[in-house]
């Protein structure tokens, strides 16, 4: 498989776009016509061919542009990447996991040569060819976590595990759904989840933590989470909210199809070998409403999910004010026909849209 990397931006003129392929493989997060928080976790051992679940770290057409955007965010605010002093070994673990996975899964793009501790890493899409000594920080231009995360799509939280608890002690966070690494670093699992409504009372976080503490090396897990973003803006950080918040008010019935994006996070969980830390990559996928509704099943379903979503969730996810306009738009793509179970587009079997 060969990928054409898009020339595109996630800011200013927002030239981000999804190809036909990217639309068809979009990780649509709703397996039924309604949504509520759940302990929605499964094994991460591949998936259907060419789906975003196939590889350990999915590389897609947005790779190069996303890495350019990340470099800009870090230049503007270095606090988006932090690692408490005891987390350096976990950073090396992560670097190894990603280099090994990517060079095996995408040999046409990435190459890893290892001679004992002497490693050579070639990243063709980004034009990188570095030789370094594994576990020797002085041989890389950044710390190991920062080095590899500048070359990998998605945010990364690296969690230390101690006292039967996970602690957010390191991370690279530039494509987040409105939470601050700088504020949350050092917190435990319950503390950083504190702002989430309903889920604590439902016992979700207690059960999720239990599951995570038991994840073993070689058996990673995954789940999806989602929210809404106006414009294909990756950096919806609280740090910059005073700059981007106003964009939420720029939606109109005319522009909503191209301007309102469903934002889906493919979250995975890997145990790291030397440090016993857990790494939590959060990969963000964006899709415009007009592209979602090009898949009839997804258009029908998204309308029903957004219509029936509890107010607490729509408020927390930040689109309560825009929900009526979203529903006006989406209702045009819901003819009331039943939808088949599961997340896949089913383009061949699902009926096309009937006159609404």
């Amino acid at each position, binding site marked *: 498989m060969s990928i054409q990397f898009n020339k595109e931006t996630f800011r200013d003129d927002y030239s981000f776009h999804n190809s036909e392929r990217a639309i068809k493989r979009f990780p649509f997060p709703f397996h039924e016509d309604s949504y509520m928080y759940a302990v929605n976790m499964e094994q991460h051992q591949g998936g259907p061919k060419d789906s975003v679940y196939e590889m350990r770290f999915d590389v897609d057409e947005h790779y190069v542009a996303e890495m350019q955007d990340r470099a800009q965010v870090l230049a503007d605010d270095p606090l988006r990447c932090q690692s408490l002093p005891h987390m350096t070994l976990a950073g090396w673990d992560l670097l190894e996991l990603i280099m090994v996975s990517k060079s095996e899964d995408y040999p046409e793009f990435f190459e890893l040569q290892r001679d004992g501790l002497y490693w050579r890493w070639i990243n063709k899409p980004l034009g990188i060819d570095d030789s370094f000594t594994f576990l020797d920080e002085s041989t890389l231009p950044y710390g190991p976590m920062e080095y590899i995360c500048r070359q990998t799509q998605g945010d990364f939280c690296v969690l230390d595990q101690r006292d039967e608890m996970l602690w957010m002690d390191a991370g690279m966070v530039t494509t987040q759904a409105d939470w601050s690494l700088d504020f949350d670093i050092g917190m435990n699992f319950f503390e950083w989840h504190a702002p989430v409504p309903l889920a*604590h009372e439902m016992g979700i976080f207690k059960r999720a933590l239990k599951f995570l503490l038991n994840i073993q090396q070689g058996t990673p897990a995954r789940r999806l989470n989602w929210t809404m973003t106006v414009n294909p803006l990756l950096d919806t950080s*609280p*740090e910059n909210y*005073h700059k981007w918040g106003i964009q939420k008010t720029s939606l109109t019935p005319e522009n909503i199809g191209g301007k309102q994006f469903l934002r889906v996070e493919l979250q995975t969980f890997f145990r790291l070998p030397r440090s016993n830390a857990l790494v939590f990559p959060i990969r963000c996928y964006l899709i415009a409403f007009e592209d979602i509704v090009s898949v009839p099943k997804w258009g029908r379903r998204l309308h029903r999910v957004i219509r029936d979503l509890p107010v607490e969730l729509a408020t927390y996810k930040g689109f309560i004010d825009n929900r009526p306009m979203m529903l006006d738009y989406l209702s045009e793509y819901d003819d009331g026909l039943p939808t088949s179970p599961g997340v896949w587009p089913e383009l061949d079997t699902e009926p096309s849209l009937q006159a609404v």
Partner: protein
Amino acid sequence: MSKFQFPESIKSRPVYGTLEPRGDVAYLLVADAEGAEAIYDLATAGAHVARNAHIIYLPNETGDKYTGMLQALNPAQLYIGPSYEAALSRIQRVLSNARMGLQVCLSGTEGLMGKALIEVSAAGIPHSAVQFEHSGSVARRMQCVHCKGITENVSTDPFVCSHCGLNLFVRDHYSRRLAAFQGVCIDAEDPGNVPDPVELYS
């Protein structure tokens, strides 16, 4: 003395108890303003506390209202200082010499307790050896999520960031590492529409 009961809140928000005497061991007591009352109650509940205690007290706006009371306890060491910043190196020095079993008691405003806890944790004191009692002002130490500046003693919501000047609302989300609550721009989606400030918990 009537104590303020904080309403139930989210899980990152600290909760405080009542200082209680423990064994006949060394005590480090750090307090500001009305926090002196918690020390007084502690020393009254456990006659052995005062003679084992190093008290670091910052009266702030209460002036000498409580200082005589603390002197009358006749503690092993009593320091009355003009500000937390002034007392900081002393606190660090005492903690660097801490023996196993040292009990740390923090009382007064949330800002004082939070800042002192940073030092206590850095010194490796187990959290089971640290107690808290809130007394006095409910004002908060706030981090502006935008410019990262800290504004001390915030008593209204919203408030103006003392560094960047943005109008911020007061969240309950709390970082122990920063000893601060989070402040977020209140008029980002409707510039200029800033509600009148309301006293916290009023």
